[in-house]
C-alpha cells in the first residue's frame, strides 16, 4: 500500500523531471535554430551571386580566346609559316593544359561513404590522390582533372585539415577524376593486383571507374606566374 503510493509519487516526479529536461533542450535548440537558418539563407544568396560573377568572367574569357583564335586562324590561311605556328600554338596549349580537350578515357569517383560516421578525419588523404594521379600518368594519361580542376605541371595536392587543396581550391570527398587516355590500359593499370584500387578499397574507400568513348577534361583557369624563372636565350632553340 505504502509502496504503491511511493511508486506513484516517484513516477510523477520522473515525468515532470523528463519534461523539464526536454524543455531545456528545446530552448537551447531554438537559440541555435533561427541564427543558423538566417546565416544559411545569407550564404546561399552569396554563393549564388559569386557563382554568377564567376560564370560571367569565364564567359568573357572564353569569348576573348575565341576571337584570338579567329585572328590566328585567319593568319594561318595566309601562308605556310603561319599555319605551322598556329599548329605549334595549339600543341603547346594542349600540353600546358590551357584548353578544353576531349577524347576517350575514364570517369572515376573516389568516395568516403562513411564520412559522416567519423567526420573528424577523412580516409581519403592527399597521398592517395597523389599516387592515383601518378598511376594514371604511368599508364599513359594525357589530361587529368580532379573535381574539374585541371592538373598541370605546377599542380599541388595538399592536405588542408579535412579538405584537400588542388590548385589552391579546397575540396572534400567525393573526388571525381576525369582522365583522357586509352581506357582499357588505364583501367587495367589501376586494377592491377596489389595496385592502387586494391590498396584504397582495402582502406574503405569506394571507387567507381567507367570507361568513356568521349570525355571532356576542362582547361586550367588559374594563373601561371613566372616570378623567379626566365627562359634561357639559346643560340638555336627548336
Amino acid at each position, binding site marked *: 500500500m505504502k509502496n504503491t503510493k511511493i511508486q506513484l509519487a516517484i513516477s510523477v516526479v520522473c*515525468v515532470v523531471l523528463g519534461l523539464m529536461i526536454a524543455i531545456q533542450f528545446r530552448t537551447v535548440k531554438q537559440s541555435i535554430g533561427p541564427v543558423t537558418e538566417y546565416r544559411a539563407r545569407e550564404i546561399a544568396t552569396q554563393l549564388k551571386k559569386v557563382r554568377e560573377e564567376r560564370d560571367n*568572367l569565364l564567359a568573357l574569357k572564353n569569348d576573348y580566346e575565341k576571337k584570338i583564335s579567329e585572328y590566328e586562324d585567319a593568319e594561318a590561311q595566309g601562308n605556310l609559316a603561319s599555319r605551322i605556328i598556329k599548329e605549334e600554338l595549339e600543341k603547346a596549349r594542349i600540353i600546358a593544359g590551357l584548353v578544353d580537350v576531349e577524347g576517350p578515357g575514364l570517369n572515376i569517383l573516389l568516395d568516403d561513404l562513411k564520412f559522416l560516421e567519423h567526420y573528424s578525419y577523412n580516409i581519403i588523404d592527399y597521398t592517395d590522390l597523389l599516387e592515383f594521379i601518378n598511376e594514371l600518368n604511368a599508364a599513359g594519361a594525357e589530361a*587529368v582533372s580532379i573535381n574539374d580542376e585541371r592538373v598541370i605541371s605546377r599542380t599541388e595536392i595538399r592536405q588542408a585539415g579535412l579538405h584537400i587543396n588542388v590548385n589552391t581550391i579546397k575540396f572534400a570527398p567525393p573526388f571525381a577524376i576525369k582522365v583522357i587516355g586509352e581506357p582499357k590500359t588505364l583501367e587495367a593499370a589501376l586494377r592491377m593486383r596489389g595496385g592502387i584500387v586494391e590498396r584504397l578499397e582495402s582502406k574503405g574507400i569506394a571507387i567507381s571507374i567507367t570507361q568513356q568513348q568521349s570525355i571532356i577534361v576542362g582547361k586550367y583557369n588559374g594563373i601561371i606566374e613566372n616570378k623567379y624563372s626566365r627562359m634561357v636565350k639559346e643560340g638555336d632553340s627548336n
Partner: protein
Amino acid sequence: MAFIFGFLITIQLKLNITPEGIITIQRLLDMENDVNNVLSEINNLKQSVAEAGQKLKEYELNIDDDGSIYASMENELKKIRNYAGLEKVEGSGIIITLNDSLESFEDAINPELFLIHDIDVLEIVNDLKAAGAEAIAINGVRIISTTSIKCGGPTININNSRHATPFVIKAIGDAKTLEATALAPDGYIDWMEYSGIRINVKKVENIVIDKYTDIPRINYQKIVEGGV
C-alpha cells in the same frame, strides 16, 4: 521509465515543429567553403581575362599596323611553350640531393625504410609545387603534368628513363620559401631523415633546368570542337 517517457514525448513534439528543415553546422561550413573557392576562382579569372584582353588588343593593333599578327603569334608561342615546360629556364632556387641510407640494415625489421621510394620523390616534388616551384627537374628530367615516378627495383623510372641514386632534384622559385618547405620540422624530408636517408638541401643563386624532351602525349586528346 516514466521519466524517459515524458522526455521522449516532449522531444517528439519539438522536433516536428522546425519549419525550414535541418540546417546543420556542417552544411553551413561546406557552403562557406564553396563561397571561398569561387572567390578564389574569380580572382584568378580577373587576371586571365585581363591577359586575354590584352593579347586580343595586341592582335587587333598588329592587323591595323601591317596586316599581320605573325610576330605576335611567335611571341605567344614562346610564352605558351614555356608554360608547357617546353623551354629551358633558369633562376634562383634549391637543389635537393637524396641518397640511400648507408646504415647496415641486415637486422632491421623493415629494410624497406632505408631505401628511397617513388612515393618519397613524389611527395617531395609535390611539396615543392605547393611552395610555388616554377620548374622542377629530377636527374635532369623536366617534370610536367604527365610525368610519372615509379619504383623499378633498385632504380626509379621517371617516365621511361631509369635512374639510380643519388637523386638530384632541382627547383626554381623563391629559394627561401622552397628551402623552408623542404626543411620544415615534421615535414616529409624531416621524416625521411629518421631512417638515415641522406638528404642535402641547398639554396642556389642560378639553376638551369632543361626543357621537357620526351614525346608529347597528344594521341588521344584533342581540342574540343569550337574551343580555342
